[in-house]
C-alpha cells in the first residue's frame, strides 16, 4: 500500500514537473495547515487543494505541498523549517495558536518568504505577514445572540458553552454575545462553561445547567457547532426542544440537523471562502502588487431552514 502510494506520488511529482516546465513559475507554496482531522479544517484543506491545484494548472505556481500542523504550535514551528528546506518560497498559514505559532510568521519574514495568514491571527500577523484572510468572530457572537433574542422575544436565562479558554475565536465570540445580551435586561447569563470545543463536555455542563435552572433556561449558546448540535440533541431527548441552541461553523453535520429541523440555526463560518480568498491573493503578492487591504474579512452567515439548501452540499 505504501509502495503504491509512493509510486502515485512519484508519478504526480513527475507529472507536476513536466507540466511546469512550460509554465516557468518557480513559486513553491507550502500550505501549513492547522490540522487535517476536524471537520472544519477538512473542508478548508479541501478547498485549498482545489484552489492550489488550479494555480498549478494555470502555471501561476510551480507546485504546492500540505504540511500538517497537528494543532500543535511546536509542530508548526518545526514544519516551517521542513518546508523551507524543501524549497518553499511562499507560505499559506493556518496558525494553531495566536502566541505559540507566531515564530512561523517571524521565520518567514526573516527569510524573506511571503506569508498569508488564514482563519486566525498570530500576534505578529499585522506587522509581518503580507496579508490576513479571516472572519470577525465578534460578528459571529452577535449573530448568535440576535438569533436567540429573535426566537425568544420575552427573554430568560441562557448558558454559554465556551471553546478552549484563551483561544481568540472563543474570546471574540464571547465578546459578541455579551455585546448584545449584556445590555438586554430581559436576558440573564447563568454562566460561561469551559467546554473546550468538545461536544461531550458541553452536554455534561448542559445537564447540570438544566438540573439547576430547569424551565428558566431558554437558550444555550455555544462557541462551535460540535457543542451546539450535541446539546440540542440532548435537550431534545429530554423533551426540552423549546431550548434554542446555536453555534458557529456550519459543518455538514449541523447543517443536516438544520435541514431536518432538529437544530434551529447555525452561524456558518465560510472557511472554504477564507482559504480561497487567501490563495487568490498569491498571484498579486508574487507580482508585487499593492493589496487594497491587508486584512480581508469574509462575513459569517446565519443558516436556518430557509437558506440551508444553499450551503448543504
Amino acid at each position, binding site marked *: 500500500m505504501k509502495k503504491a502510494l509512493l509510486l502515485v506520488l512519484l508519478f504526480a511529482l513527475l507529472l507536476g514537473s513536466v507540466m511546469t516546465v512550460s509554465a516557468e513559475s518557480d513559486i513553491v507554496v507550502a500550505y501549513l495547515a492547522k490540522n*487535517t482531522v476536524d471537520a472544519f479544517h477538512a473542508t478548508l484543506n479541501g478547498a485549498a487543494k482545489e484552489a492550489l491545484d488550479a494555480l498549478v494548472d494555470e502555471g501561476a505556481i510551480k507546485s504546492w505541498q500540505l504540511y500538517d500542523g497537528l494543532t500543535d*504550535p*511546536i509542530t508548526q514551528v*518545526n514544519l516551517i523549517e521542513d518546508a523551507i528546506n524543501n524549497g518553499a518560497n511562499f507560505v499559506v498559514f493556518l496558525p494553531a*495558536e495566536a502566541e505559540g505559532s*507566531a515564530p512561523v510568521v517571524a521565520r518567514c519574514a526573516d527569510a524573506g518568504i511571503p506569508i498569508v495568514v488564514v482563519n486566525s491571527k498570530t500576534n505578529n500577523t499585522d506587522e509581518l505577514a503580507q496579508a490576513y484572510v479571516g472572519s470577525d468572530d465578534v460578528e459571529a457572537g452577535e449573530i448568535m445572540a440576535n438569533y436567540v433574542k429573535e426566537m425568544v422575544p420575552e427573554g430568560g436565562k441562557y448558558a454559554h458553552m465556551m471553546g478552549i479558554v484563551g483561544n481568540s475565536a472563543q474570546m471574540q465570540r464571547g465578546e459578541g454575545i455579551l455585546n448584545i445580551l449584556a445590555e438586554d435586561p430581559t436576558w440573564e447569563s447563568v454562566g460561561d462553561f469551559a467546554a473546550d470545543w468538545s461536544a461531550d463536555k458541553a452536554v455534561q455542563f448542559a445537564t447540570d445547567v438544566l438540573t439547576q435552572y430547569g424551565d428558566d433556561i431558554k437558550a444555550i449558546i455555544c462557541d462551535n457547532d460540535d457543542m451546539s448540535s450535541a446539546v440540542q440533541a440532548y435537550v431534545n431527548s429530554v423533551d426540552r426542544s423549546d431550548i434554542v441552541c446555536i453555534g458557529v461553523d456550519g459543518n455538514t453535520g449541523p447543517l443536516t440537523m438544520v435541514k431536518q429541523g432538529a437544530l434551529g440555526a447555525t452561524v456558518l463560518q465560510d472557511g472554504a471562502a477564507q482559504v480561497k480568498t487567501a490563495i487568490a491573493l498569491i498571484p498579486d503578492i508574487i507580482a508585487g502588487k499593492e493589496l487594497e487591504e491587508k486584512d480581508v474579512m469574509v462575513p459569517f452567515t446565519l443558516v436556518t431552514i430557509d437558506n440551508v439548501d444553499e450551503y448543504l452540499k
Partner: protein
Amino acid sequence: MSDKNGKNILGMNQNDFNMFTRRYGIVFIMIAMFVLLSVTSPNFLKLNNITNVFSTVALNGVLAMGMVFVITAGGIDLSIGSMLALASTTIGITLKYNGNILMASLVSIIICAIFGLLNGLLIAKFNMFPFVVTLASQLVIRGLGYVISGGYSFALANPSFSRIGLGKIGIIPYPILILLSVTIIAYILLHWTKFGRYVYAVGGNINAATASGVDVFWTRVGTFVISGICAGIAGIIMTARINAAQPNIGVGYETDAIAACVIGGTSFAGGISTIPGTLVGIIIIGLIYNGMNLLGISSYWQMISKGLLIIGAVMIDTLINKRR
C-alpha cells in the same frame, strides 16, 4: 540455553546474534533510513535539513532520556507532557516578574523535579502503579499550569529567551547542544555509576534487588526525579522555540518519548535499555517525520509508520526475551 542452538548466523551463534541485533539492529535501520531518504529526496542531505532534524528531535530526545530511566526501573511516566506545559507557564511568569533567564530556567526545572519527586514518592512509598499515579498527576500538573497562567497563553516578557531555541554556536543550534549534554550525562549516570546499576537491578528483579541490599525506594524515586528534570529542560527548549508561555501545550508528548525508548531497545519489562539506543530511537522518529514531510507523504501515514515501527520493536523485544 545456548547449547541447543547449533546453527550459526553471520558467524555468530544464536545468542551472540541476539545480543548483536539488540545492540546494533536499530542502528542499521537508522542508517537504512538515511540512505533511503538521501536517494529519494534531494533536499534531505542538505546541512540545513540535517540540523533541522536534530533540533526538532532535541525536545523529544531530552524527554526520552528521562523516560528511559523510569522504564528501565520498571515504571512509566505519563506526566511529562503536562510538565512541559507547567514549565512553559512557570518560565512565562518568572520572566514577567524577574526577567532573569537563568532564574526562569532553574525555577522551571526545579518545579518539574518536585513533581517528579512527588510521583516517585507516591509510587515507591505506597507501592502504587506508576501508570495510575502519573495518569492522575498529569491532570494535577496541567491544571496547575492553567491556574498560574489564568488559562491564557502569553508572549514572553524577555524576548532574548528565544535565543535558547533559535541560537547557534557555529552551525550547531543550542537545542542540539542541550540534547548532547543531557545524553552524555544520562549515559554516565546509567552506565557508569552505582545508581545506574541499581536502576537496572530494580527493573530486572525488584525482589532480588531488595535482597542484595539495593536501596530500591530511593532508586525508584530517583528515576522519576530525573524524568521531571528532563521534562523541565525540554520545557525550556519548547518555550524558547515558540517564544510563548502556553498552558495547553505538550499534549501527547509522552508517547513519542516512550516510543523512542521502545524503538531503541528499552524493555517494558524493565532492566534492559541503553542510552545510545534511545538516542537512535528518537532520531528514527525524527527521520520518519522529516522524511515524510520532504517526500510530501501525509501525516496520516507518518502516524501509521510510527505505530508499526513500535509494534515491530516490541515484537523483537518479546521474541528475544522468550529465547533467553
